[in-house]
């Protein structure tokens, strides 16, 4: 299951559309890094609205994505974590420490626009 990555100005938007296997998640990670380099993007939004399970591997991979992208000098926002998924993550002891999150794509974009406006 490929995750489409959309270029929107200085941002990249990756929208997860179905359950992802571990291999899919790793592919998303390398795809995003490549695209961030290629387009010199300033930020990445990963929309996880369609993810019905966020287990330890998925959250670790998302954290890695965010950290790698930060090393490129860009920002990552994870958007759309469903309430049940958030509940399960907390029970499991999973955190996305150091990773920005937002309610949905719209909020994520607003967050980034605000951030880049205030720093530029």
């Amino acid at each position, binding site marked *: 299951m490929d995750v489409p990555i959309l270029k929107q100005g200085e941002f990249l938007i990756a929208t997860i559309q179905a359950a992802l*296997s571990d291999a899919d998640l790793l592919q998303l990670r390398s795809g995003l890094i490549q695209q961030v380099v290629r387009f010199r993007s300033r930020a990445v939004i990963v929309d996880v609205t369609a993810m019905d*399970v966020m*287990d*330890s591997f998925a959250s*670790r991979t998302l954290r890695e994505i965010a950290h790698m992208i930060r090393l490129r000098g860009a920002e990552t926002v994870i958007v759309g974590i469903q309430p*049940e998924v958030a509940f*399960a993550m907390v029970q*499991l*002891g999973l955190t996305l420490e150091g990773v920005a999150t937002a309610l949905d794509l719209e909020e994520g974009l607003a967050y980034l626009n605000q951030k880049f406006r205030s720093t530029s």
Partner: protein
Amino acid sequence: MADEIRVAIASDQDIVLARQRGRTLAFELGFSSSDSTLVATAISELARNILTYARTGEIALKAIQSTNRQGIMVVASDEGPGIADVRQAVKDGFSTSGSLGLGLPGVRRLMDEFMIESELGHGTRVTVRKWKQ
């Protein structure tokens, strides 16, 4: 109704399949969407442990019934290397694979009942149950 559903675990795709089957069964049994997610997440972790430590194994799912409540039982079994110190393995922060070490204690928190049997060189069997609220 639902007899045992068995999902062989041998690849990362099987993890997805096992947790989807588990969610469907939980939902069919009338679990809330939130509890179905907890069950699916627990299955994902158990199936991943099988893949990481034993390479192959099985997830079995079953509807269960006690006097006044319904539930779901998940049995994750493998014939892998087994766990040397089971008590240590269910303690928070313990891992031998370099992962976060949240696997088993986390699964325990997601479910209502948790049981683990393991014998070195013979495999591991984790049985968890969740009851409908």
